């Protein structure tokens, strides 16, 4: 029997539905650890984890760091603005040097799609993808699944991803994870921000946000990256809000209460109305709380799993 997930977590696309369920089920008891007075368990004591962030990140980096510390791992943060990367060192050289210092895991955020896999194939440490280019952001996808699952069964749930799906690794991880667990998935946004051929994945496409709201049980509202406007994908932020903004007025016309997710950071008044973001059906802060639990589960599962030891340990019958 192989370790629960293999060596690395690079995306949700390669995982089976059972793998994803295992991570979500494992995350459940980890939620409680963060509610304790002493928010720490010793399970990763002595493991060293490097957070290698080649792109700016606040939420994800801090969330990983909390997850690591609450499992008692030793952590080092490498921000590339203050590292040898500035001197031209390649990704592989950076990682090999870290590995020569005997680390156990690397959490990597990188602007290039495929960077996490590239690294995972070249070092022995476990690699966790914390977002690579426009490819995947698997732990965000998992925490979105966990947050939805807290409120309703994922199978059969109608989830619409609204906004800049084209450039979004969050959207990709969501689509893979949701489809594998049996949800119905749709995307909605300006045609210029939807990937060509997204329908071939079995994903419905809405051109108008009103139609999406009428159809969906859950909206996952993506951040409109402001640099997209300068690149000409959308005419103006005000125009975007007018046409695609998730506003209270639009939600009030929905046939049922929709759950609202947003991966952050939010542009209030661009993709989402403040009254929605702070409203009773917003799960945005639950997502952040669940993010720590999901990341604890992933690190725990990747660190475990030497089957030959398990056989020996099970022999005693002490359950």
């Amino acid at each position, binding site marked *: 029997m192989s370790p629960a997930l293999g060596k690395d977590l690079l995306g949700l696309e390669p995982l089976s539905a059972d793998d994803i369920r295992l991570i979500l089920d494992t995350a459940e*008891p980890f939620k409680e650890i963060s509610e304790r007075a002493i928010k720490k*368990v010793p399970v990763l004591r002595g493991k060293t984890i490097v957070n290698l962030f080649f792109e700016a990140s606040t939420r994800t980096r801090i969330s990983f760091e909390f997850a690591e510390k609450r499992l008692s791992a030793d952590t080092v943060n490498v921000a590339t603005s203050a590292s040898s990367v500035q001197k031209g060192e390649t990704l592989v050289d950076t990682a090999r040097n870290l590995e020569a210092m005997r680390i156990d895991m690397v959490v990597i955020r990188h602007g290039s799609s495929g960077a996490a896999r590239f690294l995972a194939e070249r070092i022995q440490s476990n690699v966790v993808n914390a977002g690579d280019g426009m490819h995947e952001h698997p732990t965000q996808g998992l925490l979105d699944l966990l947050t939805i699952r807290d409120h309703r069964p994922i199978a059969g749930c109608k989830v619409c991803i609204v906004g800049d799906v084209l450039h979004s690794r969050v959207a990709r991880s969501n689509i893979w994870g949701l489809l594998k667990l049996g949800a119905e998935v749709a995307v909605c946004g300006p045609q210029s921000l939807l990937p060509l051929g997204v329908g071939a994945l079995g994903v419905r496409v809405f051109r108008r946000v009103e139609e999406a709201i009428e159809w969906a049980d859950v909206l996952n509202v993506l951040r409109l990256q402001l640099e997209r406007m300068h690149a000409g994908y959308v005419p103006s932020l005000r125009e975007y809000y007018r046409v695609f903004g998730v506003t209270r007025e639009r939600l009030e016309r929905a046939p049922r209460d929709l759950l609202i997710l947003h991966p952050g950071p939010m542009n209030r008044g661009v993709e989402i109305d403040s009254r929605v973001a702070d409203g009773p059906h917003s799960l945005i802060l639950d997502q952040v709380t669940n993010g720590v639990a999901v990341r604890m589960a992933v690190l*725990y599962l990747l660190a475990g799993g030497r*089957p030959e*030891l398990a*056989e020996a340990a099970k*022999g005693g*019958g*002490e*359950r």
Partner: protein
Amino acid sequence: MPPEERQLILDDRALARTLHRMAQDILRQTPDPISLVLIGVQRRGVELAARLATEARTQSGIEVPRGAMDITLYRDDLEAVGPRPLVGPTHLPVDLSGRHAWIVDDVLFTGRTVRAALDELADFGRPARIGLAVLVDRGGRELPIQADVVGERVETGPRDRVEVFVKELDGRDAVEVVRGAKVGT
């Protein structure tokens, strides 16, 4: 392969009598029963703690708080738990400080589970005293840990397996020993 040799140690009535006596022993060893709290170790320890709490209430009239604890994250062999890594919930109903806490487990064997449970309890507070109550002590300790209250002592070899069944999870109450069980089955 020869069929497994199964030996019944306790049937449902014997198990009920044993729990009755264990609850008596726990109350006798708890000078201030108001401070009592029973903490079951996942999984079957949780059910046993619930039964003991009911027994203790019948015998003393005191409502005994009970909790549940999963010690997986405190084990000293994480790398060995890989293929069955699901962690159960930990839930402690009261502040443990100053209380007389009892760890309740189904089988005491190497003592490593209890070692982990003691570590975990320490992260939840500082009980005035911690006791250990187990349904079956099967010997074979690898650590200097002994139980204060034992339901039944069973002589076993390292290849034997002690199986505890409870109605809530297994549909019946029983304790059985499987002699010479194949390792890992």
